[in-house]
């Protein structure tokens, strides 16, 4: 094992070419994932978080999709340079995916056992019987009671939560180095979500794999993440240690996200406006049109570069952290100093 991160995403750009123009879904983002750690990519719908996760093993539809730029270094190899055949040997083997909808990941006409056994035998040279034994073991480890019996059941015979466990078992079948989980608990009830989150944590301890966990729910992030990448409109707004993100959020967007969580009563605050066009994104910071603190400089040029915010490893893309600006201004409420400068047209733009 080297000291290099397991996965290093550098300046990744993923675009979709549509009739209306090029949608810049992921527009130059960078982050890394160390061995054995959990990185959460958090953002609203349309932030590009799912496209990011799908770009790593290039499972986006190409065309209309295209990885326009950037590098995805996985264990020293650049995945963007690989052929589809080479990638196929990595997908499901060293990097496994778990998606939001477990229904879609399982073929309804085969038993779950057959599907997992096949997944094992694609990448490993083992006998059917050995693969079957491994499968029972896996199903048991992901918490499916009576694994020996349920292995011969069809997907429809499992509940939503159990199906997601099966999908996780399938993802783990080749003991991947990296598990990419895209909103794996969003379709589940809270009580089941708690079970799955705990399961993922336990499995990570057991297998020592890294996890990229994509979600919109900050509660889930707090529950599972080691480090957090906050995305908005195809750009990284902030990234850092989970404790820093929750206790000292630096970017106005992160702060706003924390304020709009339900369950805070009258403290809860919506973020005005809506996501900008991804075909023709605004100049400057992508969040500026909705930011209560935005000043003229925020709407100039490009997204500000990632700056260190107080602590090493905690980086933020906001001009208030650049020289000549005072980041403590961000702590004042939206009615504070910036209110006069912030755009007052409000409302959700179309």
């Amino acid at each position, binding site marked *: 094992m080297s000291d290099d991160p397991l996965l290093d995403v550098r300046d990744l750009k993923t675009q979709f070419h549509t009739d209306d123009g090029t949608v810049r879904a992921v527009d130059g983002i960078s982050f890394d994932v160390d061995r054995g750690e959990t990185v959460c990519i958090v953002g*609203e719908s349309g932030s590009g978080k799912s496209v990011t996760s799908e770009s790593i093993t290039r499972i986006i539809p190409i065309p209309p999709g295209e990885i326009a730029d950037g590098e995805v270094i996985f264990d020293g190899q650049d995945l963007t340079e690989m052929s589809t055949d080479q990638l196929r040997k990595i997908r499901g083997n060293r990097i496994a995916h778990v998606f939001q909808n477990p229904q879609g990941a399982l073929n309804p006409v085969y038993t779950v056992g057959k599907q997992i056994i096949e997944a094992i035998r694609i990448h490993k040279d083992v006998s059917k019987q050995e693969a079957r034994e491994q499968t029972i073991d896996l199903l048991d480890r992901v918490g499916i009671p009576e694994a020996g019996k349920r292995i011969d059941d069809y997907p429809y015979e499992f509940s939503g939560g159990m199906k997601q466990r099966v999908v996780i078992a399938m993802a783990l079948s080749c003991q991947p180095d990296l598990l990419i989980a895209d909103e794996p608990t969003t379709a589940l009830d809270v009580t089941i979500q708690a079970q799955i989150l705990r399961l993922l944590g336990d499995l990570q301890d057991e297998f020592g794999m890294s996890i990229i966990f994509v979600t919109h729910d900050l509660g889930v992030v*707090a*529950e599972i993440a080691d480090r957090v990448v906050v995305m908005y409109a195809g750009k990284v707004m902030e990234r850092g240690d989970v404790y820093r993100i929750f206790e000292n959020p630096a970017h106005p967007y992160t702060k706003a996200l924390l304020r709009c969580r339900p369950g805070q009563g009258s403290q809860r605050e919506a973020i005005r406006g809506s996501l900008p066009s991804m075909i023709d994104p605004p100049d400057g910071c992508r969040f500026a049109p909705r930011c209560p603190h935005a000043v003229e400089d925020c709407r100039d040029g490009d997204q500000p570069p990632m700056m260190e915010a107080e602590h090493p490893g905690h980086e933020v893309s906001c001009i208030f952290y650049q020289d000549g600006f005072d980041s403590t201004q961000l702590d004042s409420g939206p009615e504070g100093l910036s209110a006069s400068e912030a755009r007052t047209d409000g409302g959700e733009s179309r």
Partner: protein
Amino acid sequence: MSADAPLLEVRNLKKHYPIQRGIFGGEVGRIRAVDGVSFSVERGETLGLVGESGCGKSTAATTMLRLEEPTDGDVLFDGVDITEYDDRELKRFRRRAQMIFQDPTSSFDPRMSIGESVAEPLRIHGMSDGNRRRAIVKDLLERVGMSGDDIDRYPHEFSGGQKQRIALARALSVNPDLIVADEPASALDVSIQADILQLISDLQEEFGLGVVFISHDLGVIRDIADNVAVMYLGEIVETGPTEQVFDSPQHPYTRALIDSIPSPNPRERGMAVELTGDVPSPANPPSGCRFHTRCPEVIQPEGYDFEQSAWRSVMNFRTKVTTRQIDLDGIREFVIAETDVTDPEDVTHDQMVDAIRSDFDIPDTLSDPEAESVLSDALERVVRDEFDEASASLAEAFETVCATDSPDMVRTEAGHSASCHLHDQSVEVEPGERIAQSDD
């Protein structure tokens, strides 16, 4: 119509769906989607109906508006039973009670401009003058924060949050007294949810509306509801003022539900009490208290004393034995997969018993020797495929009130109502048997 009657009072509402088989459509069972729920909503009040998917909360909504015919029970609107209404009266009721749906996109006809959609209830209820409709719709759009000029645009030209505002305008158009909102914010991004919730409560205040707010999200319910009713498998298990229910939940299910919400504090991770298993099928709900198959606080029978978690595991085992859901061949195969044994014939009974114990998380020995002897006897019988005997001895030894009697809705010490045997006067509960709930 009596002035002091609540706006809406639901009494023992039931909605069962028959399961039909065969060419003659004979009924072989019924799905008890809603099985006897009662609650009331006053003018100007928001009732939050909360529960996991499949608990029957949406069916309760459509049934109490008679969008589906109730199987049993009464729905009193202004003191008058709407289940007795004929078509004409029902249509008048439909004007006074409006509904808002979860998916703002599919709740608008894509071929109608939003002006037409918002005006549709007006038209249905007899306003034939297009100019008047237009004036009302323009005013309504402005009141929900849209522009009057949006009237000729089509639904696809708006974002989800905007569409939900327009849906509110549509619901308001006929000046209703009651609004039933079925997960109105769940499809929206968290960043704009608060706006919609705020708009709902503002409009409610302005027009004195009664609101039934259905959601799976306890956080949202906590923000918007005055009173809350927690549903599990077609029944209401706890109901009371929102703050009280959230601050001192009296039903173990409510406690588990509140605990399951991930806390936004990374330093508090892993604190939740985990609820095992899935929601049972409403076609065949458990006897007694419907939650007893998952309840972490299921009551131990008298005369035993061992850890609550082990007791929970023993109960899980007992349920599976009774329903013969333990597959010996599967366990044998599991033993083969886990150990060096290769021939199914060579798997010993002890290995099987151990496998079952670990499958159900039952400790190797129970701390109570009497219970241990009953359990090990039952395990031995199960391995010998004597399910009936095992089931009988387990039932005799481990009988719990939770599995036999259905609890009544009683007023708890906290001041609001819950239906759980832990609050029965007749059931004696030793303090140690309950998992201590810290009221943090």
